């Protein structure tokens, strides 16, 4: 099976993330960046499917120059090659536009499966697989805690609010995975060395046939009109249990009309 894994570079959650006053987009330049954590699980799942049945794993990332670091990490885990879509015109694209750009690149690739993470820690939208399914006309198998691929059929256990659903589709299909699906491997030293020699294709929007009028901040279908930084939550009373802790909390809850 040939698999494309969608990998996004995101600001480290620990870093102080900021919106820029100038254009109200995420300041991606001044913060520490990492591979979106769930995308490591997506890479791992792709590698396991490949190791069981053969095929090739291709990493696809849309993001600025420095996203190369994240791509290298995915290659050092064991992916075979990578495609990096990078163009100043893409800056400030919202999710709907990003799905258009990624779908354009997917058209140029041959795959049986696309595997994404369930959610990016910066956008927290969890919609990329749904957007891409709509754009490509291919099945959406999102929120998988288990994936079984055999022949032309893929089956997932989709985590739901109160259990799970078994969902099945024919390939090519678009899968997203949740973090309980596997335990991602660490890149080995050998892997890190090998990654440097693996093929990495860099595409501009022109290379990918992406219409400049449909991406970027100016034409984004959703626009940020303003933003405000909230003062951090104020800590309330902290009291020590003197054997009456339960009662004290109950009193607080009663004062707030919860009981």
């Amino acid at each position, binding site marked *: 099976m040939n698999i494309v894994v969608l990998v996004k570079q995101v600001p480290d959650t620990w870093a102080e993330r900021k919106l820029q006053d100038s254009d109200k987009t995420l300041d991606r330049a001044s913060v520490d960046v990492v591979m979106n*954590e769930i995308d490591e699980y997506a890479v791992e799942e792709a590698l396991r499917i490949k190791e069981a049945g053969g095929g090739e794993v291709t990493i696809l990332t849309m993001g600025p120059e420095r996203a190369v670091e994240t791509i290298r990490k995915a290659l050092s885990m064991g992916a075979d090659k990578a495609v990096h879509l990078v163009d100043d015109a893409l800056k400030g694209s*919202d999710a709907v536009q990003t799905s258009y750009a990624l779908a354009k690149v997917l058209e140029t690739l041959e795959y049986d499966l696309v595997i994404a993470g369930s959610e990016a820690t910066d956008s927290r939208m969890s919609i990329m697989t749904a957007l891409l399914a709509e754009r490509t006309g291919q099945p959406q198998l999102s929120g998988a805690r288990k994936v079984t691929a055999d022949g032309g059929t893929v089956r997932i256990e989709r985590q739901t609010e*109160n259990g799970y659903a078994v969902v099945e589709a024919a390939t090519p299909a678009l899968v997203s995975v949740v973090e309980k699906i596997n335990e991602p491997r660490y890149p080995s030293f050998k892997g890190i060395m090998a990654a440097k020699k693996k093929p990495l294709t860099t595409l501009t929007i022109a290379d990918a046939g992406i219409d400049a009028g449909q991406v970027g901040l100016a034409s984004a279908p959703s626009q940020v009109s303003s933003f405000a930084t909230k003062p951090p939550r104020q800590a309330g009373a902290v009291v020590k249990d003197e054997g009456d802790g339960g009662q004290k909390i109950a009193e607080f809850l009663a004062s707030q009309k919860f009981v």
Partner: protein
Amino acid sequence: MLVDHVDGAPKKVSYELLTLARELGTPSAVVLGKGASAAAEKVAAYGAEKVYVCEAEELDGFLVGPKAAVLAQLVGDKAPSAVLLPSNAEGKEIAARLAVKTGSGLVTDAVGVTADLVAEQPIFGGAVVVSSTVATGTPIITVRANSTAPTEAAGAGTVEQVSATISAADTAAKIVETIVEDKGGRPDLGDASIVVSGGRGVGAAEGFGIIEQLADSLGAAVGASRAATDAGWYPHQNQVGQTGRTVSPQLYIAAGISGAIQHRAGMQTSKTIVAINKDPEAPIFELADYGLVGDLFTVVPALTDEIKKRKG
């Protein structure tokens, strides 16, 4: 607005969306799937003037696509000024597909929408509030549960049956089986007004017994930190945080949870936060409205008893 329901019983978030929609204009409710007709009267009580009902089998037999197709058809026919959906996993995915189908912009995770359709979204774990608008097509906005207090107001509730045209691409992912894991009759985490969560401090799967008892005394849902779900003490679907669910209840009680930034990301916008932790330095106390330094194994059962006593 799209009604989230189980066999015709709307979830609380649906009433919240209707209440919000009334502030913005004249609400029409869309109820899709098995039992949809049964919801009509209930949503009329919360102000739905029109109720569009579709019970086509595909709606429950395939993932998300068919629901987006029916909504897209309605957007085309009825030209609403906006579409509101619940901001849960399925609601967001339906919204995403609807945005592409209708060439519209999309805003997710709103906690408020103003009369001129500006959506407010908390980002970066609540540290920043963004005001967003949709510049293209019909604004599609998903709204988090507990953003509006639901109030009743009778609407006409005129029912219109919708016959759906659903394409092959919309039925590409077939739902073969649905397994409901028992929640002990507790409310859903995303919907609940009160959430009681346990973390590593709970110590074992059995330890969640006292967490569940406290939850039941308050009619609350049960959540867990990643440490607890990773250890297998509680199911992953109950994980609260960056890689779990985002909840925004009226009251969030954290027991034996340190308050790591990734956990906060999923609960920081709760209205009132209470923390029980034996370590006075635990970061969870920085955001708690009321913190108790103590052993959860004595405090939690005592609290449960006290609540039961007060509730009689």
